[in-house]
């Protein structure tokens, strides 16, 4: 099987390098890259940690779609050459490795950081929110974000407007705004009301289509927008 892998390092020109790997049964894209690095090209750089679809560090763009390389079987891809690129919208470090800092920076910008509020503690320490409560179920899926960046890479609005915080940060904002223990709801809703934030999302759901944790950042953003609209009319929570 032919693999075309994106190669670039500071000071050199970008190119797609062609490799040939024998696709064994059950081989994933990550397996193929490890194989190449071991046997044909030790200079090839990529990132992974868990190898079993948990950490998200192997996120890359395979055949035009964001996927985690360790969970993508070569046998599930088209037979033609398989192209492997780093995530879009992240500064490149080298080859398939990108700098994930924008995710954190956007979260800080949107104040997507937990701030203990008055209800954060009860008598026995941190206040618990039962797993079957309505509050918890509303954010059940959304809190599973592993920060892999695939949604940011897939979002056309992120590429259109660099100031748009993107799906990952807004999904985090949503989980915090629905957490009764958090004390910064007002600050945060001020932050998301800025230009280039909620209004930028056009609901194309590209983020939702690629999220490996089956989160729907689209739903999170739409929910934030509904709250913002209700607040415009002076009803509803922050």
């Amino acid at each position, binding site marked *: 099987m032919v693999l075309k892998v*994106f190669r*670039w390092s*500071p000071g050199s020109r970008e190119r797609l390098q062609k490799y040939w790997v024998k696709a064994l049964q059950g081989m994933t894209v990550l397996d193929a890259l490890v194989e190449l690095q071991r046997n044909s090209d030790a200079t090839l750089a990529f990132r992974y940690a868990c190898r079993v679809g948990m950490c998200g560090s192997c996120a890359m763009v395979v*055949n*035009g*779609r964001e996927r985690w390389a360790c969970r993508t079987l070569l046998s599930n891809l088209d037979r033609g050459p398989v*192209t492997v*690129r*780093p*995530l*879009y*919208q*992240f*500064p*490149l470090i080298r080859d398939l490795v990108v*700098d994930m*800092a*924008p995710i954190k*920076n*956007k979260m*800080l*910008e*949107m*104040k997507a*950081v937990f701030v203990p509020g008055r209800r954060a503690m009860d008598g026995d320490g941190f206040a618990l929110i039962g797993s079957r409560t309505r509050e918890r179920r509303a954010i059940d899926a959304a809190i599973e974000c592993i920060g892999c960046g695939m949604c940011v*890479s897939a979002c*056309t609005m992120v*590429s259109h407007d*660099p100031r748009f915080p993107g799906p990952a940060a807004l999904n985090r904002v949503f989980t915090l705004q629905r957490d009764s223990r958090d004390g910064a709801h007002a600050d945060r809703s001020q*932050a998301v009301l800025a230009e280039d934030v909620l209004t930028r999302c*056009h*609901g*194309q*759901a*590209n983020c*939702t*289509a690629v999220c490996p944790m089956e989160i*729907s950042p*689209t*739903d999170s953003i*739409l*929910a934030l*927008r*509904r709250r913002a609209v209700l607040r415009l009319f002076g009803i509803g929570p922050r």
Partner: protein
Amino acid sequence: MSARRAEPVRDRKMLTRRMGSAEAWRDTKVGMWAWLLQRVAAIGLVAVIAAHLKNPFARPVQAALLALVLFHGLLGVRAILLDFGLPARWHRLLFLLALLVGVAAFAAIWRWRWY
């Protein structure tokens, strides 16, 4: 922790999804088509309405107007339903429904000659 401005990434090399490349379109998702087609229909409407004002009785223009209004409007209804909280996982189904309802409504209205 205080909020900081994101470091400017523009001066660092970054790949963006270039719409001119075949690969960007290779895995275009349904939601994006729905969005794009609705916008294209809107631009089409402006042209067709102008033609319609000039000659309200031209049948082809009437047909185009009806088709574009249905298409654009029903995709708009889809967007509104999603805005109002229908789960985003239904967005593909809603796209399909908008197309089907549009075709059915076009056929029904076109057959019903009102003059």
